[in-house]
């Protein structure tokens, strides 16, 4: 049991914090919310130069070859800074999907581009059912032709779909729920792929993507035909653990912001941070941040070591999906009226909490995994 960060991990954390403070302050985050694209090429290229995009991409494909533990430490910081753009969709989802299931050709071509900042990816999974289950993919079809596949249907909640160069699309290719899904790599510049933005309260860039007779070559299949769900199950674990890392980092940021505010805010002639009612709120936040961070890091470590992380991921996501929104709510309560204003930054985190708690399974779903794993 070694709860501490390695030297490399400390270095990643410190340099990430420094870089994000300088290049990704809340003014930038606000500007990107209003921006049509949602991120700047300049910052994206810097992420590539820093090696963040290919952090877990093997060195033979031009990445840094680190484990998911290191990526999770980085995600704590990007979560705290609310880094705009398809970083999560690319460096977590895209990279892990290609590592899990990519052919040699796909890996050497796409992972190298991804690490280099030349390939942004997004996951197109949900349909009208919008559940994280194999059954809920029923409308999007892929029909085999002589030289490839034809895709038809509509995908919802495609995070970063508009910014992505390539989508990882789950389509139904067989009748059996968990053995009838196939993943396809589809370039977004295809004329038959359309996208429109969903207006979330989180400004988190969700799109509806429609596919009308989109034809793709045989080589665009990721993994085995009808073997998509098995890849996705694993991929969702990385996604859930990654979101937990983001929420753990953002939770610490909420706590720091709140402590800073209540120390300086004076009412009744005293700093309000000297009142027990406020101190107990702050202590509650600190306990939840501490527990959440440990759960998130444990899940990431299990994944990074290649161990079965089913329980560890479910424990972390079941907890943080409840605890992090509660941390945000307590932060607001401690801030009083000022925290309710658009001008004050607090809502930037609070609004994102909704998307984070739902992504890759909410509390209820992960509680279900836990009771099943306990044999109930």
């Amino acid at each position, binding site marked *: 049991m070694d709860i501490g960060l390695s030297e490399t991990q400390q270095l990643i954390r410190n340099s990430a914090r420094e870089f994000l403070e300088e290049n990704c302050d809340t003014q930038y985050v606000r500007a990107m919310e209003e921006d049509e694209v949602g991120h700047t090429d300049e910052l994206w290229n810097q992420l590539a130069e820093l090696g963040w995009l290919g952090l877990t991409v093997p060195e033979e494909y031009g990445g840094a070859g680190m484990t998911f533990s290191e990526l999770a430490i980085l995600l704590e910081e990007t979560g705290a800074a609310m880094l705009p753009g398809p970083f999560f969709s690319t460096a977590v989802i895209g990279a892990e999907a290609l590592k899990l299931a990519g052919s040699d050709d796909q890996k050497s071509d796409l992972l190298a581009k991804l690490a280099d900042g030349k390939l942004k990816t997004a996951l197109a999974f949900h349909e009208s059912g919008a559940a994280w289950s194999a059954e809920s993919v029923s409308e999007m079809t892929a029909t085999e032709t002589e030289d490839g596949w034809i895709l038809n249907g509509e995908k919802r909640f495609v995070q970063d779909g508009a910014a992505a160069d390539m989508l990882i699309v789950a389509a139904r290719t067989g009748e059996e729920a968990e053995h009838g899904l196939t993943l396809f790599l589809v370039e977004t510049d295809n004329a038959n792929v359309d996208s429109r933005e969903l207006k979330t309260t989180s400004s988190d860039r969700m799109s509806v993507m429609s596919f009308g007779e989109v034809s793709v070559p045989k080589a665009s299949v990721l993994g085995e035909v009808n073997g998509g769900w098995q890849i996705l199950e694993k991929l969702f674990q990385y996604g859930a653990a990654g979101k937990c890392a983001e929420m753990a980092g953002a939770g610490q940021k909420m706590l720091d912001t709140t402590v800073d505010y209540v120390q300086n805010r004076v009412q009744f002639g005293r700093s309000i941070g000297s009142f027990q009612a406020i101190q107990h709120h702050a*202590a509650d936040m600190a306990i939840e941040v*501490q527990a959440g961070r440990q759960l998130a890091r444990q899940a990431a470590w299990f994944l990074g070591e290649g161990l079965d992380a089913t329980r560890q991921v479910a424990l972390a996501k079941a907890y943080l999906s409840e605890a992090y929104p509660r941390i945000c709510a307590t932060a607001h309560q401690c801030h009083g009226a000022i925290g309710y204003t658009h001008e004050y930054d607090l809502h930037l985190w609070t609004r994102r909490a909704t998307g984070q708690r739902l992504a890759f399974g909410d509390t209820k779903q992960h509680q279900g995994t836990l009771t099943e794993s306990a044999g109930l």
Partner: protein
Amino acid sequence: MRYAFTPEEEEFRAEVRDWLKEQLPDDWNGIDEDSLEGWNMSRLMRAKLADKGWLTLAWPTEYGGQGASFMKQVVFNEEMSFARCPGIDGSAIKMLGPTLMIHGSEEQRRTLLPPVARGEVEWCQGYSEPDSGSDLASLQLRVDETDDGWVVNGSKIWTSMAHRADWIFFLGRTNQNAAKHRGISFFVADMRTPGIEVRPIVNMAGSHHFNQTIFEDVHIPKDALVGERDRGWYIGATLLDFERSGVQYSANGRRILSELTDFAREQVGSDGRPMSEDPQVRKQFAELDVDIECARLVAYEVAWMQSVGQVPNKESSASKILGTQLMQKLARFGTELGGMYGMLGPGSEYAPIDGKYPKMQLTSVSSTIAAGTTEINKGIIASRGLGLPRG
């Protein structure tokens, strides 16, 4: 970063588990340590643990321990707790021992520690007083210096196990004029010393665990003082940090959840189906599963900090809060699972799991109060951990 024990630690875990299985009776399911039967079992296991060299596992070898690492100690405590094995005198082993090793004289260490390591003595702790609970530094028990020692007058309360203890360590006021934290000293006394009277306090669960311990002109020798005179508050504070790693809560919680899982599978609910199929019950199981994991990892963090030479304070407060709240939640859940039968206590006809959980509901009321209330611990997190100003 490594969220796993080493192979050596896992090997040790298996060794402890197997040994406990051998030593404890078949179908052992724990015992009420406050009962006479429990006390006898506790002494029996204490002797066995001492023979095995595990009673004071973490102590240095020179004091009869094995100098085990913090993590090995964590593994041991988890297994003891999971096995519901009695016998550990926490106040002597986890509190007095480390305190004497840091602040005691060589003579005190040589005479007082080996009997603890051999499992021969029971210690109790005299901190709280009738008028000094959370505001411990306001304590009034008076200790005056005499030509050949000290004379003690006053009263201690909530002295767990004082009625069975051979020795007591306590805080007393040695300076009436100094600021309240700076007039306190740390002492040890033989419980057979004339003038010490132990009055039982029966708790709401009907058990005799607490006492009021009265000191009336109690003469104790010069060397009863531990560390420097008037520095006892700081010596006592070191010791509280030892008490709060709290890994036993989650290990106990795991055992309880597994016991309740078996129960819920067999117990039929009002709809005629096993309780384990009730969606609300399943949700509560999952919540407790998560709560246990939170308590476990936060306790590991405390132990890890100790293992690398850091002094946990807000971390141990968090661990204590999470662990004790967990105990109360488990007790409520275990009681509710029994439906109407949940009101039946130990020894009652029809009582599920021998009425353990309604009884635990009562005993666990003290968990969020004893050894630093939840509120005091939140105050520690806020002031020492987060740097918020004192109110």
